[in-house]
C-alpha cells in the first residue's frame, strides 16, 4: 500500500521503468494500480537502435510483475516522509 501511494504522488512525473527483459522505457507516469501495473505516456525506449520494436508506440501499459526497477525523479521524493511512513506501516504490521 505504501509503495502504491508513493507512485501515486509521482503521477505526471517522468520515470524510467526497467523490465526483467532488460527493456528500459522512459515516460510520463499516468497511472498506477494496486498491482503496481504502470501506464506511461510519451514514451521513449533507451537504446532505440537495439530496441526499435516500440518506435511507433506513444503510450503503454506495463504489467507490474515484469518490472525490475523504476528510476524515480529524486527531487519529487521526500525521503524523510517515506521513512516515517515505512516505520508507521511496519508498526501496524507487527501489532496485527
Amino acid at each position, binding site marked *: *500500500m505504501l509503495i502504491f501511494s508513493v*507512485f501515486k504522488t509521482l503521477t505526471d512525473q517522468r520515470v524510467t521503468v526497467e523490465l526483467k527483459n532488460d527493456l528500459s522505457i522512459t515516460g510520463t507516469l499516468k497511472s498506477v494500480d494496486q498491482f503496481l501495473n504502470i501506464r506511461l505516456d510519451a514514451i521513449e525506449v533507451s537504446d532505440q537502435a537495439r530496441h526499435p520494436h516500440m518506435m511507433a508506440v506513444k503510450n503503454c501499459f506495463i504489467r507490474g510483475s515484469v518490472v525490475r526497477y523504476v528510476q524515480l525523479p529524486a527531487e519529487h521524493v521526500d*525521503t524523510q516522509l*517515506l521513512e516515517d511512513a*515505512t516505520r508507521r506501516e*511496519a508498526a501496524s*504490521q507487527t501489532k496485527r
Partner: protein
Amino acid sequence: MDTSAGIQEPFDLIRLSLSERVFVKLRGDRELTGILHAYDGHMNLILSEVEETIMLVDGADSGPSGQGIVNVTKRKMEMLFVRGDGVILVSPPSRT
C-alpha cells in the same frame, strides 16, 4: 547494550536500516548499494544514491577449471524503486 535487542523478526533488521546505506543482492547476478528510504512486506524497496553492479559470466563452461570470465559493469542511479520479487537479501550497513 546488545545491538540485536530490538530485533525479533527478520523485517526488524531492515527497519533498523532505514536511512542507512544497505547492500542488496538481486536475481540475475545483480547487486545494489544504496540508502534505504522505504520498504514493504514484499521487500519492494526505495533506495537513493544507488550503485548497481551487474556480473556477466562469459563462456561459463569454457576455459581452465570450468571458470568463465566475469564481466562487471557498474551504474549509478539517483532514486530507485526495486521490485521485491527480485530481492534475494538485504544486508545492513557495513561498519567500515
